[in-house]
């Protein structure tokens, strides 16, 4: 059976087949069956259609992670429009900038988040309050028909922080998401017996897997809101109590869950698949996690928002105690091709050499919203296909696929040597008493460039700078030994749960 072309059809097909089954459960236990969720989504679509909003329009979503938010985004898709999720804990200024930038025709907004979506930039407002929502579902206008819609229509716009700090909208189509979801369905075989975690906020592309791999297959989706997501002990309990079977998040989240979630004391036996993406998983923490979740398989997924997941690798278990290097990001997913070039859009590097990872495939984004120049700087025509320059450096190892080397913008020259900051971090992670490490390079008038390591030590005896320096010198070349060591209680994270290097760099 071929999969439907449109995301909302994908959900609708599952909803018709699994009507009375639970579709989504919020952190507080509020839940919807597939039939209820479909009815709410159609009511939202009907409201949008009644306001003349549909194909070619954008709709902002300013909601916490609850059942209404899921109904809202499905409703926007059902209306033929594209949704633009706003991080509910982002500064009001950023939210307004995004809503204004993509000229939303309407915004669906939770009652206590109105400040993020003032009428000046929100278009028509649908208030997701108890009363309004109840009334919406009661007197639902019929959803529009799907005539004229195409797989290449915009499905959602995800804003990412550009290097300039100005958020830019990554345009993804129904066809983009479909190719990824078809691959994921074959790779992870989601079924109505599954219970998916939904840790990533909806403005983060990991949410695409959570939402549609589960709701397209009759599975349950268990929402983790921002507060719960930051409480590892509660998260550990959540995994057990909800009997989650599929988990997907950044390594940062799993690392904290593994260290403080009390997994070793809990029954997490239902968990069959743990997927991670977005960062390198420090190997010692991955090893511990695999030991604490002995029944799960582990998959390392790779792909910028612009490409969806484009390479993947299953982690071979058990992880040998002596292994110190991270696992490969693997081989291209179905329909994808990858190559390593010596410059953006340049020539292929010799076999085995490091190069800039370029990716072509069906998940490749449509472009950056109203930023053609930036799209052209990253997307290249080559042998009749569109290739995206990921900005990541990798090398190819026969039989293993691609090995991630680092971000191009995290490579620095120090005393004539090329230093990859991630490699410095890997060296620091070898220290048994360092729990987390993040390294930044700072310009320095005298030394040219200074490497500063921000470290979260394990509890107990404080680490001495001398000891760290000696340790680094024993595991890293001299050009990679940090100049400064700063101890932190925790590392700052971005709203997508990755290490926030920008904030670290600004520390004095």
């Amino acid at each position, binding site marked *: 059976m071929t999969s439907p072309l449109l995301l909302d059809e994908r959900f609708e097909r599952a909803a018709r087949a699994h009507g009375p089954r639970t579709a989504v459960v919020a952190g507080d236990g509020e839940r919807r069956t597939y039939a209820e969720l479909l009815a709410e989504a159609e009511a939202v679509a009907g409201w949008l259609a009644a306001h003349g909003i549909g194909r070619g329009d954008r709709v902002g979503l300013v909601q916490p992670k609850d059942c209404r938010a899921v109904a809202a985004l499905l409703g926007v898709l059902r209306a033929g429009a594209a949704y633009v999720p706003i991080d509910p804990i982002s500064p009001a200024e950023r939210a307004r900038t995004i809503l204004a930038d993509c000229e939303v025709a309407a915004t669906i907004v939770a009652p206590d988040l109105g400040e993020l979506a003032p009428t000046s930039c929100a278009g028509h407002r649908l208030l997701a309050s108890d009363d309004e929502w109840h009334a919406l579902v009661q007197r639902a206008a019929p959803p529009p028909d799907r005539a004229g819609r195409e797989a290449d229509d915009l499905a959602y716009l995800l804003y990412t922080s550009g290097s300039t700090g100005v958020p830019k909208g990554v345009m993804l189509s129904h066809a983009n998401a479909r190719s990824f979801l078809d691959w994921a369905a074959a790779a992870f075989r989601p079924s109505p017996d599954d219970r998916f975690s939904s840790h990533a906020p909806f403005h983060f592309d990991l949410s695409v897997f959570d939402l549609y791999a589960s709701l397209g297959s009759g599975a349950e989706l268990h929402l983790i809101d921002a507060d719960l997501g930051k409480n590892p002990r509660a998260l550990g309990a959540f995994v057990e109590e909800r009997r989650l079977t599929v988990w997907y998040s950044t390594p940062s989240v799993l690392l904290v869950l593994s260290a403080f979630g009390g997994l070793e004391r809990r029954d997490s036996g239902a968990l069959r698949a743990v997927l991670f993406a977005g960062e390198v998983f420090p190997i010692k923490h991955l090893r511990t996690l695999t030991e604490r979740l002995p029944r799960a398989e582990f998959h390392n997924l790779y792909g910028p928002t612009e490409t969806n997941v484009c390479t993947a690798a299953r982690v071979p278990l058990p992880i040998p105690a002596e292994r110190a290097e991270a696992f490969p990001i693997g081989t291209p997913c179905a329909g994808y091709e990858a190559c390593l070039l010596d410059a953006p859009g340049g020539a292929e590097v010799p076999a085995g050499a490091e190069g800039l990872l370029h990716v072509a495939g069906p998940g490749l984004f449509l472009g950056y919203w109203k930023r053609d120049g930036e799209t052209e700087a990253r997307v290249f025509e080559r042998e009749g296909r569109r290739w995206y320059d990921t900005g990541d450096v990798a090398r190819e190892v026969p039989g293993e696929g691609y090995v991630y080397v680092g971000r191009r913008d995290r490579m620095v020259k120090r*005393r004539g040597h090329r230093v990859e900051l991630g490699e410095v971090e890997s060296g620091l992670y070898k220290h048994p008493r360092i729990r987390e490490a993040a390294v930044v390079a700072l310009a320095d008038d005298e030394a040219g460039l200074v490497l500063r390591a921000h470290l979260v030590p394990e509890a107990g005896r404080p680490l*001495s*700078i*001398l000891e760290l320096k*000696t340790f*680094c*010198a024993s595991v890293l070349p*001299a050009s990679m030994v940090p100049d*400064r*060591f700063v101890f932190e209680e925790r590392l700052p994270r971005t709203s997508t749960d990755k290490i926030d290097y920008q904030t670290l760099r600004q520390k004095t």
Partner: protein
Amino acid sequence: MFDSDAIKDAIRSHILTEVLPGESASNLPDDMPLRTSGVLDSMATLKLVSFVEDTFGITVEAHEAGVENFDRIDDMASFIQGKREDR
């Protein structure tokens, strides 16, 4: 004007400031190997040598700036005292 302890303290304080900011003086004993352990890399050693020259008014020849004189604070102090006596 510089006895052995004063020389050692001056070197220790320079190393703590330049190479180990945040470290306490008590963690840097006189007999700790610094070059061979990697605490002092070539850049830090160059700076240390010019600090020693400026502070103690001696000239360190290229062949004298190796591990035999610049590994431990003890070694450095003996070397500097010897140099000052030769003047």
